C-alpha cells in the first residue's frame, strides 16, 4: 500500500472563542495519493477554504482554534511542527495556488524575483541556479519566452498569465502536494481551460498530489479523478468523479448536481432546485445538517449524526443514501 501524499484526519476549526465560537470545519478526514487529484466541492461558506488554510497552518493564531489528529505529508506529521520547522515545509513539500492572482502576488517585485525567492529559500541559495530553476518552471507552465515574464511585474500580465506564473511559483520546488483554491474562478472560460490543462499536465508529469477546491462541479470533473462534497463544515460524500455524476449517493450531492444547468440541443425542462436555505453556521441543526432540506429524511437524521468512514476513498454520510 502506498503512503498517501497528503493525509488529513480529524481536522476541525472553530472561529471565535469560548461559548460564542462557531465550528466551521467539523472532523474532516481524507487521503490523497501521489499523482492523484481530488476535488473539494461545496457552496460558499461551507468551510472549503478554511480547510485548506488549516492544512497549511495559515489561519491567524488569535480568534481561530484548530484541532486535528494529524496532517501528514508523505507520511510525515506536519501538524505538530513549530513555526520555524513549518516554514521549511511550506512551499517545498506543499504549495498553494490562490483564487485571486491579481492580489496574491506582490506588486512591487518582478515575477522572476518572487519565484526565485521561493527556490532560494527552500532548495538552493545560489542566485544563478535559482534563476535557472525559475526560468525552467516558467517554461514548464507554457510560457514561450520565460525571460520576459520573469522581468515583468504582476500588473503587466493578464489574469491568465498571472495565474500561470503563480503555478510556476508553486511548482518551482516540485512539492509533493499542491492545494489549488478556486484557481480559475476569477478567469474567463477560455483561459480557465488553459489553466486547468496546464495544472493537470504538470501534476501528471511530477506525480504531484492535488487538492482542488472549487464551487464548480464542472471544473472539478474536468480536472480531478476523485471528489469530496462538503456541506456546513462536514464532508458528506467521497467518491470518484464518474460515480458522482452518474450515481450521487448523498441527497445533497444529488440535489447540487441537478441544480447545474445543462446544455443541449433541446431546451431542458423545469430546473429542479434544493428547497430551503443553507442553515447559518452559528445555528446548525443537530444530527445531519441537511436533514431539514432533505426529502428522504426520517426522525433519526436529526437525532444522530451519520458519519463518513475516515480514510476510505469512497463513502457517504447518510442513513438513507440514494
Amino acid at each position: 500500500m502506498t503512503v498517501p501524499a497528503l493525509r488529513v484526519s480529524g481536522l476541525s476549526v472553530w472561529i471565535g472563542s469560548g461559548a460564542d465560537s462557531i465550528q466551521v470545519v467539523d472532523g474532516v478526514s481524507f487521503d490523497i495519493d501521489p499523482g492523484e487529484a481530488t476535488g473539494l466541492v461545496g457552496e460558499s461558506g461551507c468551510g472549503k477554504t478554511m480547510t485548506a488554510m488549516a492544512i497549511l497552518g495559515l489561519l491567524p493564531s488569535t480568534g481561530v482554534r484548530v484541532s486535528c489528529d494529524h496532517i501528514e505529508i508523505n507520511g510525515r506529521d506536519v501538524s505538530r511542527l513549530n513555526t520555524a520547522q513549518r516554514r521549511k515545509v511550506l512551499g517545498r513539500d506543499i504549495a498553494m495556488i490562490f483564487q485571486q492572482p491579481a492580489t496574491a502576488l506582490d506588486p512591487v517585485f518582478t515575477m522572476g524575483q518572487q519565484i526565485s525567492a521561493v527556490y532560494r529559500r527552500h532548495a538552493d541559495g545560489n542566485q544563478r541556479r535559482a534563476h535557472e530553476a525559475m526560468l525552467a518552471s516558467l517554461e514548464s507552465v507554457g510560457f514561450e519566452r520565460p525571460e520576459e515574464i520573469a522581468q515583468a511585474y504582476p500588473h503587466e500580465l493578464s489574469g491568465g498569465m498571472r495565474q500561470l506564473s503563480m503555478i510556476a511559483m508553486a511548482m518551482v520546488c516540485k512539492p509533493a502536494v499542491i492545494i489549488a483554491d478556486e484557481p480559475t474562478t476569477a478567469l474567463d472560460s477560455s483561459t480557465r481551460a488553459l489553466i486547468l490543462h496546464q495544472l493537470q499536465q504538470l501534476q501528471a508529469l511530477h506525480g504531484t498530489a492535488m487538492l482542488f477546491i472549487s464551487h464548480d462541479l464542472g471544473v472539478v470533473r474536468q480536472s480531478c479523478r476523485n471528489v469530496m462534497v462538503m456541506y456546513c463544515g462536514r464532508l458528506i460524500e467521497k467518491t470518484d468523479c464518474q460515480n458522482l455524476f452518474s450515481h450521487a449517493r448523498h441527497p445533497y450531492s444529488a440535489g447540487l448536481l441537478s441544480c447545474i444547468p445543462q446544455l443541449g440541443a433541446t431546451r431542458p425542462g423545469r430546473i429542479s432546485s434544493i428547497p430551503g436555505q443553507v442553515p447559518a453556521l452559528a445555528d446548525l441543526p443537530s444530527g445531519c445538517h441537511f436533514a431539514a432540506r432533505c426529502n428522504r429524511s426520517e426522525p433519526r437524521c436529526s437525532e444522530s449524526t451519520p458519519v463518513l468512514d475516515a480514510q476510505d476513498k469512497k463513502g457517504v454520510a447518510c442513513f438513507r443514501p440514494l
Partner: protein
Amino acid sequence: MLGVTFISFLLMVYFGPDKTYELLGKNPTEEQIREVRHELGYDRPFLVRYGDYLRELVTFDLGLSDSNGEPVAAILARTLPVSLALVLPGFVIGNLLGLALGLLAAWYRGKWLDKLVMSASVVGMSISFIVIIIGLQILLCTPYGLNLFPVRGWQVDGPGSYLYYVTVPTLALVLVTLGYNTRFYRAVMAEEIERDHIRTLRAYGASPAEQLFKHVLKNSLVPVLTRIMFSIPFVVISGSLLLESYFGIPGIGLVTFNAITSGDQPILKAVVGLTGILFVVALMINDMLYSLVDPRIARP
C-alpha cells in the same frame, strides 16, 4: 504654488496689519493717511501688488525688514539653519521610532504588545504639546526636577553645547509626534500585512523578517514617504514656531511670529514664499520617489 502664495498674500499682506496708523500716531488727518498709504503702496490695485510680490520672490529680491532694516534674505539665511538644527533630530527620531513601534504593533496586532503600544500612543496623543514642553522643563531644567538643561536660549558653538540646548526641544517634539506617528504607521503596516500577497509569502514559508522588511516595508513606502515629505514644511515652520517661542531660540519660527505681531510685511512675504517653495519641492521629490518605489507608477 501660486495658490499658496495667493491665499497667504491675500491674508497676510492685503488684509494684514496696516502700518498706516502705527507710523502716524493718533489722530492723523485724512491727507496724511493718503500720503502714507501711497508711500507704502497700499493704494495700488490688488493684482499689481500681487504681481510685484511674485517678482520679488522669483528674483530673491526680498527687501529689508520693516522692524530693524536688516535684509530679509540675510535674516532667513541666519535663522533657517537654526530651525533645521532644532527640529531635525526630533523629526527623524520621531518618525523612525514611530515606524519601528508601528511595525512591531502591526505584526503582533491583537496581542498584548500591540495593545500596550496602542494604549501608550493614545496617552501620548492626549497630552498637549504645551503640557509636554512645560512638563519636560520642570523635570529636566528646573531645580524641582533634574536641572540638567537650560530653560531657554541657544548659544551653540560646538557639538557639546548643541546637545545641551537641543535635547529638551527634541524630546518634546518626539513625545508629541510619537503617538500620532505610531498610530499612522501601525495602520499602514497592519493593512499591508493583511494583504493577500503577504499571505502568499507565508504559504511559501517566508520568514517574518523577510515578510516585514522586504515586502511589507517596500509596499508601504508610498504612504510612509508621503507623510514624511509633506510633514517637512509644517515641522520646519509650525513646529519650530512653538518650540522657538517657548525656548527663546532665534529660528525662523520666532522671526515669523514676531513679524506677524509687529506687521513686518517683507518678512511675512518671504516666509510665505519659502513655505510655498518647500511644499512644491516636497511634492516633486515625492513624485520622484514614487516612481522609484512603485513599478505600477514607473511602468504603467
